[in-house]
Every structure is written in structure tokens, then in C-alpha cells.
């Protein structure tokens, strides 16, 4: 199956290793990955900050870029959430019914990584090995917009050598929320502080999640406090073949 990689602008610009891991994982599983190079950004930041008309060119760009793919995958619940739940509605509100219809077709074949692996490719054991103590934070949009449920945990449980520990109050938001982190920085930081407290309670070496944006937020708090825990994207763990120590 030829899988189109929707790498997301954040991963492209700031976390390229997440994109590389996604490619390597899917190739290891025997699939062809293509990267439509005309992709830029899905426009979620514009939509969620109120700039819907400025999001229209981005939705059009995204739709053009992925129309030729059989199936599309992104290492992000949030960006897939925007494609699936916002694009056609925003296009329709702007009166662009053609774009709305086309973006619905893209939405129907776009999957978050754990969805693609389990629901489309039917695989839970991806052959990974990652000998570290790991806790998993389910990001809000993967949990409540996409309803991925336990899929990421099902994948992680098959990883060799992993010491998977439960995160207390896992389903609580980390406080990122896109421009919320800037517009309501104090509240956002208070939410982050509680999330970090729970992460540290697990004594995990690594906190993982399916969204680089939420991980960026948590990492920003953890390196500021210089705590002994780092963030690693789910795709990187699933791509890892690091042998047990």
C-alpha cells in the first residue's frame, strides 16, 4: 500500500526525527511511503484562533497535496482531528462547497499513526524494541476528537524491553491548546505543572504521546525544571530497534 505521509508543519520544522521514524516504521513493515512535497500546514492554528478565512488557502493546499494518495497518515492526533472534523466545515462556512466535498474525501482516508497501524494495516506488534521506563500521555484530540482509545497503548505493550507505567490522571489536558498557551499562559502553565507532577510520580525516563505539539509543551516544562525525564514521540518508540541493555 502506498501511504502518503502528512508530516505536519511542526514535525517538519522542529521535530524531523518524528517524521523519519514514521517513514522507517512503515517501510520496515513493508509499505511504500510517499511524501507529497507540496504539503505545508493543515491550518488548525488559524481555525482554532478564529482566522478561518486565512485557513482556506491552507485547506486548499492540503487537499491538493493529498488527493492522489491511497491513504494518508500523520504522526499527530490533533492535525488529523483538524482534517477530519474542521476542514469541510470551514470550507462550507466560507461558501466553498467544492473544497468542502474534496476535503471530506481526504478526511475519510486520513489516519493518525496508531489508527493506521491497527485499523488499516491490522498490526499491533510492529517489532520494536525500546528498553526504557515509559509513561504514555493520551493527547486530548487523539482521545476525544479521534477516539483512538487504547490503540497507542496496545502498540506500546508489544514493544520489547519496555517498562510501561500508567500515568495518573492521564486524560487531563497538559495545558497546551495551541495559542491558548500564549493567550492564557498562566492557566496553561498551571495545567502543565500538574501534568508534570503526575509524570514525575511515575518515575518514568520517558513520557510519550502521539502529538509533537503536546510533547513540545511538556518538554518545555521539563527542561525548564531540569527534571530527569524526556519526551519521545510514539512513532520514535515504535520505530526503535534499540537492543535491550
Amino acid at each position, binding site marked *: 500500500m502506498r501511504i502518503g505521509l502528512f*508530516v505536519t*508543519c511542526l514535525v*517538519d*520544522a*522542529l*521535530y*524531523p*526525527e518524528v*517524521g*523519519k521514524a514514521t517513514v*522507517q516504521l512503515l*517501510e520496515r513493515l513493508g509499505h511504500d*511511503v*510517499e511524501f507529497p*512535497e*507540496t*504539503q*505545508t500546514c493543515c491550518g488548525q*492554528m*488559524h*481555525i482554532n*484562533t*478564529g*482566522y*478561518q*478565512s*486565512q485557513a482556506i*488557502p*491552507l485547506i*486548499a*493546499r492540503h487537499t491538493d497535496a493529498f488527493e*492522489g494518495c491511497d491513504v494518508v497518515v500523520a504522526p499527530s492526533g490533533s492535525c488529523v482531528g483538524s482534517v477530519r472534523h474542521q476542514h469541510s466545515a470551514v470550507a462550507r462556512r466560507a461558501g466553498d462547497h467544492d473544497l468542502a466535498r474534496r476535503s471530506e474525501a481526504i478526511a475519510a482516508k486520513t489516519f493518525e499513526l496508531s489508527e493506521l497501524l491497527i485499523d488499516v494495516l491490522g498490526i499491533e506488534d510492529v517489532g520494536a524494541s525500546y528498553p526504557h521506563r515509559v509513561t504514555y500521555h493520551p493527547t*486530548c*484530540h487523539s482521545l*476525544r476528537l479521534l477516539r483512538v482509545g487504547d490503540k497507542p497503548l496496545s502498540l506500546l505493550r508489544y514493544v520489547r524491553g519496555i517498562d510501561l507505567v500508567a500515568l495518573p490522571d492521564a486524560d487531563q*489536558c497538559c495545558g497546551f*491548546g495551541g*495559542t*491558548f*498557551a*500564549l*493567550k*492564557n*499562559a*498562566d*492557566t*496553561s*502553565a*498551571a495545567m*502543565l505543572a500538574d501534568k508534570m507532577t503526575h509524570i514525575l510520580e511515575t518515575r518514568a525516563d520517558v513520557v510519550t504521546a502521539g502529538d509533537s505539539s503536546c510533547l*513540545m*509543551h511538556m518538554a*518545555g*516544562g521539563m*527542561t*525548564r525544571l531540569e527534571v530527569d525525564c524526556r519526551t*519521545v514521540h510514539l512513532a*520514535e518508540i515504535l*520505530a*526503535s530497534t534499540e537492543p535491550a541493555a
Partner: protein
Amino acid sequence: MTATFLGMPRVAPRGVGALRGEQSFPAAARQALADDQLRRNLGHATFTIRAKRAAVVAEVEDWEELRLAGEAIKTATMARLDEHLERLEKSVQSRGGVVHWARDAREANQIVTELVQATGESEVIKVKSMATQEIGLNEALADAGIAAYETDLAELIVQLGHDKPSHILVPAIHRNRSEIRDIFLREMGDVDPSLSDDPAALAETARRHLRAKFLSAKVAVSGVNFAIAETGTCLVVESEGNGRMCLTLPDTLITVMGIEKVLPTWQDLEVFLQLLPRSSTGERMNPYTSAWTGVTPGDGPRAFHLVLVDNGRTAVLSDEIGRAALNCIRCSACLNVCPVYERVGGHAYGSIYPGPIGAVLSPQLTGVEDNASLPYASSLCGACFDACPVRIDIPNLLVNLRAQHVEAYAEQHRLPSAEAIAMAAASWAMSEPTRFVRGERLGRVGRLLGRKGRIRRLPPPMSAWSRARDAPLPPSETFRDWWVRTRGGTPGETPGGTREGTAGDAPGTRGDT
């Protein structure tokens, strides 16, 4: 037949009622976050009530179907709201009640004030009611020399404390029991100074204080949880029984209801009387459900007035997406699960309607310019939607309101805001791959700001981020550049990557050291 355009429906007027705060949400939130006692009280209370709700919701097998039914009934009712209201009016009249229509808070306050004055009384007792809080009825009555006594225990605490409610269901949630004891000792006058902060002792003290009012008051004011159009029956659900005292003992009962509270039939109640108590107090059933239909000679009040209040609701109804906010049954489940509410409390929202539902309801009732910071008071985590018993998609409503706010600002100002300029620039840069790539390369200057793989201080407007958080250092090679380097192709020119070259770098290593 000719059509006359009557203009767009009016929003709730300024200068009356409790729908507008004095400061923006971020400013009020900052103050609230600095109050450790408040955060402890809120954290404890919301945690407890969340757990109770989760337990009683889990035991209902068809909870999701009930939510769908609640949503469907409310949506259908709102679609023919005018017809249901006229039917309600006729039903109430046929049972001896008097119906008044109030366009806004000011008209509603005036109607109630005149009704009380006509009785010759200067005191009223009140059943807990959001609608009367919304229109500022107590203040309007006070201006006319009429004292209004709250009889709901939590509302009494708020009133005696010269305070404002901070939660829809638990208005004194920001107070702990020792603070409540202090308020009772200070304000009630005839309280034993050795009063403990034991909840039972506090409740007994309030009971004695209120009983005198119940026995002497001639006029009561209430709201409703539901009003049934087919029979003209009003209902109040409560936990304490104080509401029932107010509804049965006085001679005159004046009920103030927002027009969205109407339900067509008794059958509809079956759904909501299951959804509401489990969602609000986390109980299978609330202790008291009082229903009354007009007046019944020899039983209860001899005069009944129903005041139907619009106060911006028709304006909300005119918005295709936003109108879902009118489906709210005021259970407050969304407050209890909201990570923002849990940390800042209800006062930060300014309006009497706090939390996620307040963030979508208040700006619509007042017009978004008067509560412009509320649609942004959410991380869009979606916990509110999952908890909502009538499935109001609050995140979607918030996003819709943000768009309306941005568009209204652009219409009213000749110069765009700094944010609008940044957003337009970002849209321009990201809508073409060549410009996007140039932007990414430009972003690499960020590497100059950091060391040890992170940036500790960002320039404005990003400085709000770096007050509490580091920012990542941009990598020396973007994903796109890596793809082109290892797989061929030219950034921004050929759509669709080709698969030449090898598997590339190992995952988990960053090319930025």
C-alpha cells in the same frame, strides 16, 4: 402578503444583570491562580464531584442513547420555540396563572418589582435560580426597597458573604467549611459563637436562620428547571427542600424563566430527569422534585406569575452553530471536568455562567465584543463535550465564536490587530511550499537563541510561552530537507516524493548538535 424586517434580535443590554465581568479572563485568571486556598478548595470539590458523576453515569447502560435523546428533544424544541412558548402561555393561563413576556433583563426586573409592590410586601424569599442571577433581580429589588433572601444553602453563603456565585450548581464551591463558619458567625447575628465547622452543625444553623423566613414571607421568587408546554407545569429539582418551602408556603409565587427552558410534553421529562441529577450532583435521583401547575385553590400560593425572559436568547437562536448552547440544562458537569475551571474557578469568567458552557453562552447573550476573552478561555481539550448530558459540542462552539470575534474586530477597526497581521502572514507563507521552505530556513536563526538544545527566552509575543516553558531549538535539517537529501526531489516543486536512496538516519537522533 408583505414581509417586514424587524431587525436582528437584540443581545442582553449593558448596565444590568450579571453577564459581563470587569476584567478580561486572562487577567482575572492570573489573580485566581495566585490564591492557593481557592485552588485547593476547587481542586478538592471538583475531584469529588467528578468521581461521583463518573460512578453513577457508568451504571446506566444506555447513557449514550439518553444523551442523544436529550440532544434531539432540545434541538427539536428550539426549532419551534415560538409555538411551544405560546402553548405554555395558554396552558398556564387556563390554570389560573398570569404570563408576562420580558424582552430583556430590565423589563423582567421591572415586571417582578411591580408584582411584588402590588402585594404590598417588602421582602421575598428565593429559590435558587440562575435566571434571576443573570438579570440581577436581587439588586433591582433592593433598589426598590425590597429585600430578597436566598434560601438555597450555598446561595445563602454567597449572599451573606457579600460574594458572587462561582459555580452553577455549587455557588459557594470556592469556600471551605471554616470560611463558611466565619461568614455565619459574622453575618447571622444570633449564632452561638462556639459553632464548629462540622457540616451538620453548619446546616442546622442555616436551617434555623431560614425557617423564620419561610414562615413569615408572603412572596416567593423562583426559576424553573423545566416548564411543560402541554400542561403549563413548572418544575424545580433540588437537594435541600428549601425550594419546596418557597414554592408552597407564600401567598404569591413569581417564577422567572429563560425562554429556552420550555419542553413540549411530560414524556420529554423522562429523559431529562435521568440526565440532570446524575450529571449535576452525581446522584441517581435528586431528593426533591417540585412541580406546580397554575394555582390550586386551598393548596399553595393563591397567585402565580410566570415571567418569560429573552435577554439575548433569540439572538443566540439565530446562530446555526451557537444555538446549541441554549440546550444547556444547567447541570454544571462541564465545569467539574474542565481543567481550566478547576484551576481558576468561576469568578474569572466574569459572567454568572462560568466554565465551558459560560464561555459559549455569555458571549452569545451579550454579543461577543462584551465577553471577547471568554471564547479563548479553553485549551479545546473536549472534556466538556464528553460530559455534557445534551451533547453540546462546546469546543466547536468556541471555535465558531473565535471566528465571529475575529471577523467582528476586522469589521469594526480600520487597522488590523498585530495578531491578525501575524496570522495573515503565516497563511501567506504556508499556502505555498516554496515560501514555506523559505520560512523554515528563516526559523533556523532561532538556533542562535538557544543552547543545550533548548531556548529559555523568546522575544514577544512568544515571551508568554517562555515565562514558564523552554522552547525547542530548531534542527539543522528539516524533515523536508532530509527527505530531499535522502530520497531525491526538490522542495516545493515536484509533488509526490520519489523513493531513491537509503533508509536514512536512525530514529531518535537529532541532527542538531
